[in-house]
C-alpha cells in the first residue's frame, strides 16, 4: 500500500534523524524470537542507519531450555514408562549427546501437538501416562495450564506436565544487572505483553532501567517501535511505551493471568546460556502436584551441558553474534543443528542463517 510505504519512509527518516542527534552507536535488544525472525525476514536491519544495531535477546523458549531437559525427556520416552507429547519446536533439539526426540518419533512414544487442547484426546487414547513438555513464555503458558485444568475437570488422571515455563521480566532484570551489558533499549515482546501487560516492565523505568517499547510484528510496527526507542534515548528518557495497543491492553489479559496464578508459582529457574534466574520460571502449585511429571517420574534436575565450541550461551545473552561462532554455517546448520539457537526456527542462529546469507 502506498500510504504504508510513505509512512515507512517517514519512520525510517525519523530514526535516522534521531540516530544522528544521538551521535554514538546505539544497541537495541529485541527480546522476542518472533521479532528476531520478522526483523530479518522483512529486511528492517537494512533500513536502519549504521549507528543502530539490533541484537537478539533470550526470547526463544526452546533456546533457553537446558540441554539436560531434553536428556531427561529422552530418558523418559525410552524408559517405556510414558508417552511424550510436545510442540514441534522441541522435537529436533539435541540433548547433550546430540540425540533428539525426533529420533524416537517412529516408535510411537513421542506425539507432536499444535495446541495444548489436543492433550485431552491424546491422554484419553493412551494406555500409558502422557507427559507434556511444557516449554514456553507467558504467551503459551496460559494455553497449556487451561488445557491441564480442563483435563483435570474431565477426570483425566494420566496427563502430566514436565514444566520448563519461563517468564520474561526477570530475565531482562538479570541482563540489566550485568556491569557491561551495553544495551541501550529493549524492543519488548508483543505477544508476551498481550498476557502480562505493560505494567510488568515498570522496573525498566527505575535507576538501572533502559527504554522499552512494546512492539508488534508488522514492518510498520517494528519501525515505529525502533523510532520510539531512539527518540527516548535521544531525550534521555526511560519509559515503557506501548506501540502495539491494538493487541496489548493495560493490565494484559486478566483471565489468562488468573489461570496462570491459580496453577503456577514463581521459582528460580535455569536458563540455558544465562544460568539460574531468580523467579525466572514457573512451576506447578502444590494443589497440582499430582500432575507434575518431575514428582511422578522422579526426574532429576536438568543439567546444562554445551556442545564443544557452541557459542549459543553467548548468543542468547546478546554477547556474541552467530558468525562469531566457529560452528556456525559449517558444522551447525538448520538441517544438522548443534545448538538450540540453530534448532528453533526462531533461534538467532537460524534467523541469521536463513536471512543474512542471501
Amino acid at each position: 500500500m502506498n500510504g504504508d510505504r510513505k509512512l515507512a519512509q517517514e519512520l525510517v527518516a525519523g530514526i535516522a534523524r534521531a540516530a544522528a542527534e544521538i551521535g554514538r552507536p546505539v544497541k537495541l535488544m529485541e527480546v522476542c524470537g518472533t521479532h528476531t525472525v520478522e526483523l530479518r525476514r522483512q529486511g528492517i536491519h537494512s533500513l536502519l542507519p549504521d549507528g543502530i544495531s539490533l541484537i537478539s535477546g533470550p526470547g526463544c523458549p526452546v533456546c533457553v531450555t537446558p540441554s539436560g531437559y531434553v536428556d531427561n525427556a529422552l530418558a523418559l520416552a525410552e524408559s517405556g514408562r510414558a508417552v511424550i507429547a510436545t510442540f514441534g519446536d522441541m522435537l529436533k533439539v539435541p540433548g547433550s549427546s546430540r540425540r533428539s526426540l525426533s529420533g524416537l518419533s517412529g516408535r510411537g512414544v513421542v506425539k507432536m501437538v499444535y495446541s495444548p487442547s489436543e492433550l485431552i484426546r491424546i491422554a484419553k487414547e493412551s494406555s500409558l501416562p502422557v507427559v507434556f513438555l511444557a516449554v514456553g513464555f507467558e504467551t503459551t503458558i496460559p494455553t497449556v495450564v487451561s488445557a491441564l485444568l480442563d483435563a483435570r475437570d474431565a477426570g483425566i488422571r494420566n496427563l502430566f506436565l514436565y514444566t520448563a515455563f519461563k517468564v520474561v521480566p526477570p530475565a531482562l532484570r538479570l541482563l540489566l544487572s550485568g556491569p557491561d551489558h551495553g544495551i541501550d533499549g529493549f524492543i519488548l515482546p508483543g505477544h508476551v505483553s498481550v498476557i502480562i501487560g505493560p505494567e510488568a516492565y515498570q522496573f525498566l523505568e527505575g535507576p538501572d532501567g533502559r527504554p522499552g517499547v512494546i512492539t508488534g510484528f508488522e514492518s510498520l510496527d517494528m519501525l515505529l517501535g525502533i523510532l520510539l526507542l531512539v527518540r527516548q534515548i535521544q531525550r534521555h528518557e526511560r519509559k515503557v511505551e506501548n506501540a502495539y495497543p491494538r493487541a496489548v491492553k493495560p493490565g494484559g489479559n486478566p483471565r489468562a493471568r488468573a489461570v496462570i496464578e491459580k496453577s503456577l508459582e514463581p521459582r528460580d529457574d535455569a536458563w540455558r546460556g544465562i544460568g539460574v534466574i531468580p523467579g525466572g520460571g514457573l512451576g506447578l502449585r502444590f494443589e497440582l502436584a499430582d500432575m507434575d511429571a518431575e514428582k511422578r517420574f522422579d526426574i532429576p534436575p536438568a543439567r546444562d551441558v554445551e556442545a564443544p565450541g557452541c557459542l549459543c550461551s553467548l548468543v542468547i545473552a546478546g554477547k556474541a553474534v552467530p558468525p562469531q561462532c566457529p560452528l556456525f554455517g559449517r558444522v551447525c546448520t538448520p538441517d544438522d543443528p548443534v545448538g538450540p539457537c540453530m534448532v528453533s526456527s526462531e533461534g538467532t542462529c537460524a534467523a541469521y542463517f536463513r536471512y543474512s546469507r542471501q
Partner: protein
Amino acid sequence: MCLATPMRIDRLLDGKRAVVSQGTVTVQVDVSLLPDPKPGDHVIVHAGFAIEVLTPEEAEERISLFRKMAELTGDA
C-alpha cells in the same frame, strides 16, 4: 514460539470454543481466555487459543495513530 495470527470469529460453538477464519483457513480454537467473545471479533490466535481481542481499527485510523505516536508531521 510466540507467533500468533490475527483471525476473525465466525461463530461460537459453546462457551469455550469458536470457529475462526482468516482468508481460506478455517479452524476451531479455544476462546475461554476471553471474557466476552463474539462473532465478528478479530482475535489473536496462539497455539489453538484466542489470547486477545484486537481493537478494531481502520487502516487510516491506524496510520494516524502511528503518526501521532511517532509525532510525524507527514511532510517529512
